[in-house]
């Protein structure tokens, strides 16, 4: 079980990297990854919200939407849960955990419209929803939570990598039309094949099929 969880965690970071392979959360990736500290702050907030959102939406899907045959309401329900959750977390942090709020507060309102969060809540239902019948709810729930955190860490990895890359690229002198965003996209194009190269490594190291 633990081996499988580790395999899920690392494959979400390396093989299925949300930003560089799957294209979720490109906007904050291009917008916020200019400096290392803002990259860390943004991705910290994203990991936190992804975990909380999955923790709420997965049971909601299994125990409420599926038995009531309301699967088609998934999109509306999930985005509402995320919007409410982000508001709630913001209020809670502001009141009880001021230091954490100071670190993550600026980025929280932007997260409702971050594709990563909605994507992870929908994808874990697709991927691990079937495991509820075979492995029981608890196991499937833990798998989906590990998957959510892994995807968030993958997002963080891409953001931090690129805060470094962009500092270097800005110091160089690309052709005039490429300055700024276009050269960042081209550097992303060069980085992304490495992540594709990780495919198979994780499955072979942990000796499991995902």
């Amino acid at each position, binding site marked *: 079980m633990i081996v499988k969880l580790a395999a899920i965690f690392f494959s979400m970071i390396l093989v299925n990297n949300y930003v*560089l*392979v*799957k*294209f*979720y*959360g*490109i*906007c*904050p990736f*291009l*917008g*916020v990854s200019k*400096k290392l500290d*803002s990259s860390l702050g943004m991705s910290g907030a994203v990991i936190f919200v992804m975990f909380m959102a999955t923790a709420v939406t997965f049971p909601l899907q299994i125990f409420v939407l599926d038995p009531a045959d309301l699967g*088609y*309401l*998934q*999109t*509306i329900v999930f*985005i*509402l849960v995320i*919007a*409410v959750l982000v508001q709630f977390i913001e209020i809670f942090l502001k009141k009880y955990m001021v230091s954490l709020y100071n670190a993550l507060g*600026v*980025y929280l*309102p*932007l997260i*409702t*419209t*971050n*594709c990563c969060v*909605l*994507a992870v809540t*929908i*994808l874990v239902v*697709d991927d691990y929803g079937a495991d509820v019948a075979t492995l029981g709810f608890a196991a499937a729930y833990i798998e989906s939570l590990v998957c959510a955190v892994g995807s968030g860490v993958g997002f963080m990895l891409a953001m931090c990598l690129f805060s470094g890359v962009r500092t270097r690229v800005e110091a160089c002198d690309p*052709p*005039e*039309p*490429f*300055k*700024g*965003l*276009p*050269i*960042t*996209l*081209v550097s*992303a*194009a*060069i980085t*992304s*094949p490495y*992540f*594709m190269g990780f495919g198979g490594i994780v499955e072979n190291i942990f000796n499991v099929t995902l």
Partner: protein
Amino acid sequence: MAQENSKVSILTNGIIKENPVLRLVLGTCSILAVTTAVSNALGMGVAFTFVLVCSNIIISLLRNVIPAKVHLPCYIVVIAGFVTIVQMVMQAYFQSLYTALGVFLPLIVVNCIILGRAEMFACKNSVVDSALDGVGMGIGYTLTATLMATLREVLGSGSWLGFQVLPESLPKVGIMTQAPGAFFCFGLLMAGCVWLEGKLDARVERKIGCQPLKDLQEGEDKE
């Protein structure tokens, strides 16, 4: 006459002057993901335009009813409603397209172009203007997606909309249909756009933002 001109300019605004993808740099996630083939790009463009036009109309109708404090959740619910309609229709009649677009169909909800237009345009303008704005932006999005998909499909699979255009003997650049090709193509297109603007002397400053404008400015102030 002057009024008709303004209607036309609202419509064309989204196609060139404020092209949502290449000039406002919004909604990049779906553009990168669905442009592997021209048919996917067109399908996504139509779905996107439908949601944008409908949500613009409804939000513009409700612009005096929605309280300012909870406007974002209200917009999101309207948009999510239309996305669900699109999902159901597509699942029923276009099964293969539904599978190809995958999770990016529900992700239209968090597409910043739609939320951005609701925030910047539909909540301040009349119903007709908002609908025209939606159509213009939708066409702009679809055209850009199709252009990029054309590049990627012709180079990557040698075909266009499923028809073979390059001779079989030419080697295919398979990586163009995968993730790196998407980033590369988008970078090239944007650089081309900037170069063209330089020639036409119409340079615009590109700000990236998947956020409503207000949040973006707040974020920048903090930096």
